[in-house]
């Protein structure tokens, strides 16, 4: 049998919607909206991840870890201590 991802996705979505809208008509739309929002929050994270991979943010992690240091506050410099000590 040929694998058809789009048809599978459509069938699963349709079945889920049928199930969710069948009962508890007054409550279900609220849950869908709430979890829709949760999904939107998750989607922003996935979107950020895709964007950062495309931009090559993960190409040189050693350099990324050291990006908060510079000439004036280099790696190895301690930058805080109790006053007057």
């Amino acid at each position, binding site marked *: 049998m040929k694998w058809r991802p789009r048809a599978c996705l459509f069938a699963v979505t349709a079945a889920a919607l049928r199930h969710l809208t069948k009962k508890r008509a007054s409550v279900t739309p609220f849950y869908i909206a709430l979890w829709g929002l949760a999904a939107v929050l998750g989607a922003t994270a996935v979107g950020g991840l895709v964007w950062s991979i495309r931009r090559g943010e993960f190409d040189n992690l050693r350099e990324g870890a050291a990006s908060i240091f510079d000439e004036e*506050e280099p790696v190895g410099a301690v930058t805080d201590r109790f006053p007057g000590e």
Partner: protein
Amino acid sequence: MRPAEERERLTRIQIDRSCRQTVVWYYASAVFWLLVGSTLALVASIKMHSPEFLADWQWLTFGRVRPAHLAAMIYGWGSMAGVGTLLWLEARLTRNRLPFPVLLPATAVIWNLTVAFGVVAILAGYSTSIEWIEIPPATAVLFGFCIAVIIAASIRMFRARESRHTYVSQWYLFGAIFWFPLLYVSAQIFLHTPAAKGAVKAAANWWFAHNVLGLWFTPIGLATVYYLIPKVIGRPVHSYHLSLLGFWTLAIFYNWAGTHHLIGGPLPAWLITVGIVGSVMMFVPVVTVAVNHHMTMAGNFHHLKYSPTLRFVVYGAMCYTAVSFQGSLQSLRTVNEISHFTHYTIAHAHLGVYAFFTMVMFGAMYYVTPRLLNTEWHSAGWIRLHFWTTAVGMAIYWLGLSWAGWEQGRMMNDPRVPFLDIVRYTVPWLWSRSVAGILMTAGHLAFAWLFWNMLRQRGAYLPGPTLLVREPERAGAAIGGEG
């Protein structure tokens, strides 16, 4: 000093100077709300074991004082300290000056007025009675305006950033600044319109309340930790891979966890199970963060003796691990059937908002403020007093209420134990809570005194933006980081 070094120093001076007015406004306001919130907390705590205390004034009854304390701490202290730190960190990370020199300080003023209105309204009896969002909904527009300006400033700095790389702290800050408005607006719609009714409102309530901690305070706190620990000890984060894994797993899992607050409630089991699954999955980001912070600090723990910032931030980071583990375990139905509706939950909440977030914010303020005002903190002794009173106070608070809450839960599940016996059992532990509260408030007063003297620039003058560093330490400090 070499030309490149001098250029970096001048750039940093300009960045810090651009942040001065806005961030100091936010920080000073935060300290004010910390004192207000602490006073209200003490009153509420004393009423738990001595209900006759201030019982004749209706605006100081427990039902008003407790939500007023929460509003002052969440929207006054926590959010204002968080926004101040967020703006300074973004300016530093993007190496840009803070934009909107008039508008951003104005948001601090508006934010203060909004919180003041909210706290007074709650004390006057106009609370919405919805936990974590008790402030009347009329204030949402003002909060919304402030957040919109802060988002605009964040985007502007990010677009003009010098570094091609986006440091992990910047990701956390973006998470906080973009997720919080979405949460807040959604909660206002669900909770203050007919969009949700009855029991389902509770689902929206706890989805919002849990995410305020997880997607507003936690990202700001972790961004600060990921910046300050490496910066203070002069060592890059142990594993940058883990830090990024930690961010994205938090981003994906955290916002599903809120419904674990409603275990046993009149909601569909699947809805609560999703919350439990999300909570347990939080082990992934928590373990990555815990391992990373510990390994970054390994070999550098002696700096805790010399750095006030590190002391507070490391205490907060350790408590982040503790509260997250505890939270995941608490979300399991078998644990929750004992801990729910007990003082155990209160101890857990304070471990998150106080021991983690508040302590990290103290650390950030000890680091940032001298750089903004070019002035040293005026007394090491007062800083130590602040640390030990808050650290010991928090430990007493957590131990006392956790123990009392667990026993309270076990007794409440036993039908043979009369309810009044359970109440009597908790009273000594509630006293320990008040003692802890007094200790923490003493620490806050010490910090307020330090901050007041900082505003008056009573400490030693700092010629540059970097605190005094002894040359041998620069050469001798451990250099690590696997990238």
